[in-house]
């Protein structure tokens, strides 16, 4: 309960800190907008079209492999705290689990999921 409370307080304080600073800034700063100033800066010249268009980001295969490995880490954290109670048997089990995972990783590499075109 206390953990939630502290975390909530940190989040609220962080939010209030940014909001209040932006409010102070709003009082202090000048405001003289004009259409040219409010144009997207990009790299100086007038931007051509929107940035929100479809293009191939190349990252989705990494995202799939990421999910697999992140779940692995989530499984292994409780194991790491408790495995001393179980002894060598638990270590052997973990090694089999990791070996299966690495086999999947090697397969993904062989299929070209980790290559950049």
């Amino acid at each position, binding site marked *: 309960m*206390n*953990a939630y*409370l*502290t*975390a909530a*307080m*940190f*989040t*609220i*304080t*962080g*939010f209030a*800190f*940014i909001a209040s*600073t*932006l409010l*102070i*800034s*709003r009082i*202090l*700063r000048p*405001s003289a*907008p004009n259409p040219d100033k*409010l*144009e*997207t*800066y*990009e*790299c100086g010249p007038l*931007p051509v079209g*929107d*940035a*929100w268009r479809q293009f191939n*980001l190349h*990252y989705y295969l*990494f*995202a799939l*492999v*990421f999910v697999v*490995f*992140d779940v692995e*880490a989530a499984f*292994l*954290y409780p194991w*790491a*705290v408790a*495995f*001393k109670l179980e*002894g*060598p048997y638990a*270590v052997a089990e*973990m*090694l089999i689990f*990791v070996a299966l*995972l*690495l086999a999947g*990783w090697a397969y993904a*590499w062989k299929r070209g999921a*980790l290559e*950049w075109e």
Partner: protein
Amino acid sequence: MSLPPLRRPAPTRTGFECDPAFVAGQFAAGVAVLVAAIAVASALPRLPWGLVDPLLVLIGSHPVINALIKALTVTVFVTVHVIFLIWLERKFAGWMQARLGPMHVGWKGALQTIADAVKLLMKEDIIPTRADRILFIAAPFLTFMPTLLTFMVLPFSEKWVAYDFPLGILFVLAVTTNISLGTLAAGWGANNKYSLLGGARACAQVLSYEIPMAVAMLSVVTLEGTMSLTEIVKHQQHGWNIIAHAPVMIPAFLIFMVCGLAELNRTPFDLPEAESELVSGFHTEYSGMRFAFFYLGEFAANFFTAGLAVTLFFGGWLGPWLPAPIWFGIKTIAVVTLFMWIKWTVPRLRVDQMMGFCWKFLVPASVVVFCATAVWVMVAGS
């Protein structure tokens, strides 16, 4: 007939000199602030605390107020130390490149960051009309709030920790991932092609390098059998992890450091903001205070990652003679300086090199280190 001299004599004033009286004034102001701070700090213990103590205890024991005081303290600390870190980084960069760095405001430019903060506070705020307004405004919040939240579990000493969470490391992993959400929101919301590429790169990079980082931290958890950061430090009473368990902990530390650099978007992994290819990456469109919060979050994360490395591998607050928080501070600043050293030494990687290095080398290497740690613990235990 005399010709005019080929080379004109150097002008006595270029306009770039600083007015000595102005510098003296700035310097005096800096000294006055410092003296006032020291005077206040030394007077604090002598104040009649006995009179107000019962009241303070009564107020402080209320859980909500207690948590609020902790949160406010950490927020103030984060802001103040970032001001110091930015000055340190600029001086360090100057030193590495044989120049002086900030010199004019305060002692050796010590107040430069404060002047910059005031300047940013008074800068006009620009939200491009074509941007996604909600995401654009939300992005600084989404980057800074998780960074602040991570400080909740960072132990400065046995007592100086906002909340001694038994699942500290898991909490850190869960919270730090959210920072990339803010980066992605900034990249997408700005409606700027370079920002979008920068945001996508940042997301891919932070997610990819989180795997080896999580597994390197998993090695420490395997070694210590606990996820609480204070417990991990207490277990290092008789020798820091990196010395007592050197064969497995040195590789784990190296992997942790490389991943830390990538998570912080620092060179050689500064692809998300690569100024020579992406203008300034995900925060190109930001100005004034909104930009300042990205910067603040970045440096706070810098301190946090260094502090985490110190906690996991270098015995946290442990050390002789000096008080515990000072030891923690010294070690953390040392690791931060190491980050700066690397930043100003190495060039940037290419995107394919960056992704390839993570997935083809760091991921299997971290898994091997983790398995070796498990075997090491079994051998040492029997």
